[in-house]
């Protein structure tokens, strides 16, 4: 029990003391996970909306694949991205393995199916005639689609939160494609794993607390943004 209490005390001291290495790891974690979430949103929102709104052969297969992707172990994604980026692999010439870019690629691959599946569900929950009604009021197709996405903004934000939560907390892919190189590709999760394995529990708990604070802060911002213009029901 002492280990835990001491760990917390030291962790708080470490954080308040402004340890530069800790803050550098935190900043890198945010940069990688937010960029990966953004890429997943840019790819996943149009794909999810298209899957929900258009009828094509194999639509259910795409949805099932996206749903499967939601539960895909990050280690598997890490493995495939590693193979792709390996020096002798198809993308080896770019020399991306063990760089933050490789970690962004892996995390985007983890987050995109989550966004696709949740966006498709969110869009399907809006009235099927919503687009027709918006066009019937004078909106062009793009404007009607924008109105539809705005209507589904709460579940869309939930999709973004789920995607961010998945990538900021995963450790397998980050370890495999990033290599946990100090000052280069070390992020909070891989740093916490390393610290724990070395018995530096205070440091590990400090990383854990920062992860929790980040997750809470990002979700708080997105929740406030989502609730901003909606009127409370009476």
């Amino acid at each position, binding site marked *: 029990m002492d280990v835990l209490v001491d760990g917390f005390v030291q962790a708080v001291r470490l954080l308040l003391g402004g340890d530069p290495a800790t803050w550098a790891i935190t900043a890198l974690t945010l940069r990688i996970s937010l960029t990966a979430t953004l890429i997943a949103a840019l790819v996943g929102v149009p794909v999810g909306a298209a899957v929900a709104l258009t009828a094509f052969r194999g639509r259910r297969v795409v949805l099932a694949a996206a749903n499967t992707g939601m539960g895909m172990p990050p280690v598997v994604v890490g493995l495939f991205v590693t193979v792709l980026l390996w020096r002798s692999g198809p993308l080896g010439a770019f020399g991306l393995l063990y760089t933050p870019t490789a970690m962004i690629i892996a995390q985007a691959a983890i987050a995109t199916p989550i966004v696709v599946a949740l966006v498709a569900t969110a869009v399907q929950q809006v*009235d099927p*005639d*919503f687009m*027709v*009604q*918006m*066009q*019937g*009021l*004078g*909106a*062009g197709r793009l*404007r*009607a689609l924008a*109105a539809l996405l*705005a*209507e589904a903004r709460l579940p869309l934000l939930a999709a973004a939160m789920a995607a961010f939560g998945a990538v900021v907390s995963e450790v397998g892919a980050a370890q495999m494609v990033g290599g946990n190189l100090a000052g280069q590709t070390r992020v909070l999760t891989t740093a916490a794993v390393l610290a724990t394995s070395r018995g530096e529990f205070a440091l590990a708990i400090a990383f854990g607390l920062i992860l929790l604070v980040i997750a809470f802060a990002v979700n708080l911002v997105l929740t406030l943004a989502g609730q901003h*213009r*909606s*009127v*409370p*029901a*009476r």
Partner: protein
Amino acid sequence: MTSRIGCQDLRVTVRGRELLHVDRLDVAPGAALAVLGPNGAGKSTLLRALARLGRYGVTGDVLLDGHPADPRELRRAVAAVLQRPILRRGTVRANAAAGLRLRGVGRAESARRSAPWLDALGVGHLGDRDARTLSGGEAQRVALARALAVSPRVLLLDEPFAGLDATTRTDLLADLRAVLDGLDTATVLVTHDRHEARALAAETALLVAGRIRQLGPTAHVLDHPADAACARLVGYSNVLPPAVTGRPGLLAARPETCRVSTDRYLVSGLAVRGTVRRIVPLGGGTRVDVDTPAGTLACLGPGGDGLEPGRAVVVTVAETDVRALETDDLAPATRGDPASVGRSG
């Protein structure tokens, strides 16, 4: 006659099956046309094809001011109100302004222009309410205000009263009629309810199986159906073949004008013998179903005293209440072509 909205050789085909084919239709500015049809007749399909909404395979021309119009021109001219009031998240006021906002009008200008329409439709006092908390009738009023706020040159109404209770519907019909009377808008109302057609539209088209079977002044169409399908649609549901009546041609009568008697008492008119099948007491009277060689005839009257299932009776109809029908069930629209709707009140 000037035409605001219309179509020419309009066909809608889905997976190789033709759902709708309308040779010609014209509605003048300020006029209202009701398209009356049973479920699955293609009413909503026609409405959406006129606005080029949805993903149907549409061929032929939609005419705006007499000229073929592309979807972009139609988008600017048309406002549509669907059966379910599809409102967005937010206040009633924001919803009323949504049509204008979608057309690129600024926030303040949209609010200013849409507010009077909320008042005109009796929901001005609900401006600050969350649209999700409205009753069905209130929501449909907001949807109508939203459509009218864009000052549409063409207003398309897709059974907007279908989900409302009788009182709400009557009130809304009266309010909408009052609003439309002062406008230059051409209105097309799609409905399966002949009373709505009578309340809103000077002209009515009867749509059966994707074809317009009859078109003309509402009062005439509703009281002089062309064929058996039209007759059933406008309430002349008792269709009598020559074999039963002994007269040439099909005849039809409304249940309200058919009387059940244990003895023939009409001096003139039709009489058909049969046996009582069932007696159903309704709010304002009694419905008696009578099995006859022509099938089951429904009779709506003040009472079914002295009647019981199995009893031999005579169904009688006064001569003035009988309508003669065309026997060809697939007859084309009875009025001359092109079918057009003018502003006649």
